Every structure is written in C-alpha cells, then in structure tokens.
C-alpha cells in the first residue's frame, strides 16, 4: 500500500516534470490575472487556454478551468502565488507572445487573451480573431 502510494507520487512528479514550462516570450500573464486566478481555482485546477476554429473572425479563444493535464500541454506557473495555466502545443502556435489578462469594465469582468502578435484582427469582444498571413 505504502509502496503503491509512493509509486503514484513519484509517477505524478515525473509526469509534472515532463511538462515543459512556458517562457516569458511565449505567454505573459498580468499580475491581475495571476491574482484573480489564485482566487477562483479549486485544488488541482488550472486555467486552460485553447484556440478553436469558429467565431466571426475564423478562430476563437476558449478559456476554462481544467483539472486534467495532457501529454502535449505546456505549463505556466506563477512565482508569486503558484497559480497555473496550461495550453496545448497546437493552441500555443496561435497565441505565442500573447498576454493573459483579467479585464474589468462597466459591462464585464473576465479573463482575456490580449496583445496577440499572431492575431491580425478580431471581433470587438475580443474572443474571435484572424491570424496574419505570412
């Protein structure tokens, strides 16, 4: 039993270490977003960023909470409070260099992906975008 637990713990550790950490050049996270994320996550939950086909400009961001972590995920971790963000490799290709922010205005408060250098234009709510052709 104890051996099983230790084995599982070690496997967990190995699995976690296998996930490459995201660099500052790949994803920036504002202090506000990291702080807000720490407030809302349950144990073991992370913010998952995805890019999906759809929306009025062709691609759209999907942001949700997820307890799962997959083989092709990359990981960001706050050095301040330990909050974590995951993004899969394919999605990262569409938002490399972007910033995760928590935006508050009169109408809405939410996590958003902003300043995406790969996005050429988007709809006004910011959830859909078209990539530059290069």
């Amino acid at each position, binding site marked *: 039993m104890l051996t099983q637990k230790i084995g599982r713990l070690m496997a967990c550790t190995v699995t976690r270490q296998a996930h490459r950490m995201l660099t500052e050049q790949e994803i920036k996270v504002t202090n506000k977003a990291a702080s807000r994320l720490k407030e809302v996550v349950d144990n073991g939950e992370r913010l998952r960023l995805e890019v999906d086909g759809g929306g009025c400009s062709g691609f759209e961001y999907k942001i949700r909470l997820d307890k799962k972590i997959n083989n092709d995920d990359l990981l960001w971790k706050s050095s301040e409070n330990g909050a974590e963000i995951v993004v899969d490799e394919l999605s990262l290709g569409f938002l490399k260099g972007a910033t995760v922010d928590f935006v508050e205005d009169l*109408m809405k408060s*939410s996590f958003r992906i902003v300043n995406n250098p790969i996005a050429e234009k988007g709809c006004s709510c910011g959830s859909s975008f078209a990539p530059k052709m290069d």
Partner: protein
Amino acid sequence: MSKFGGATAKVIKGALKVRQTSFRAALTLTNEAVSRIRVLLAQQNDANALKIGVRQKGCNGLTYTLEYAKDKQKFDEEVEQDGIKVWIEPKAQLSLLGSEMDYVTDKLSSEFVFRNPNIKGTCGCGESFSI
C-alpha cells in the same frame, strides 16, 4: 455626451428569468442586475444612472452599450427599480422593449446579459445582434 467610458453587452434571445408581467415593461432588471448597478453607481461621484445605448457595430449589426450618466436627456426612457435608475436612449428603446437585464456571474467572468425577445439572432459571443 458622456464623459464616462462605455462598454458593450451580451444579448440572448428568448425567455425571461423574471415572471412575465401582463404588459410589456420597457425593461425589467433582475435582482442581480439591480445589485450590480447599485455597486457601480456607488463607486461614482457624479453619475445618477446607467444609460443604455445601441450602436451599429459587430458582425451581426447592432450592439448595446452601457455608460454612466449624470443627466437624463429629453427623450430617454427611465426605468426605476428598487431605487436604481436606468436610462434608455431613444434608438435603443424599441429593440429593448420587453427585455430583461441580468447580471450573470461564474468563476471565470461576470457580465450584464440582456434577454431580448425581439431579436432575430446574435453572433457567437452574443455581443452583436440583429432584429
């Protein structure tokens, strides 16, 4: 017109959360919307109401906007509920008729949502709509 910043609203077609009255009110506010507006107005020194406008914008034609307002304009429609005032500019009044304004909160976001029986459709995120 207004010196305060504006923002845009999410619109949903369909049924109201609050029970329908026998006549069509200009706009109904849920308790959550009233509470949120009260908080917002309390943070402002010289705003007396939230003002709802409409703009030609977004991929589906029209978008509601929201801003702080100090003075009621001549043709603004006033909705008062539990001591909270909302002013509706003339262009927005017709399409808003009978709608419900809600404030929806979950872990990742919180936002005003209009449940609008008059609209034909919205774009995927609900910010833009057609009538």
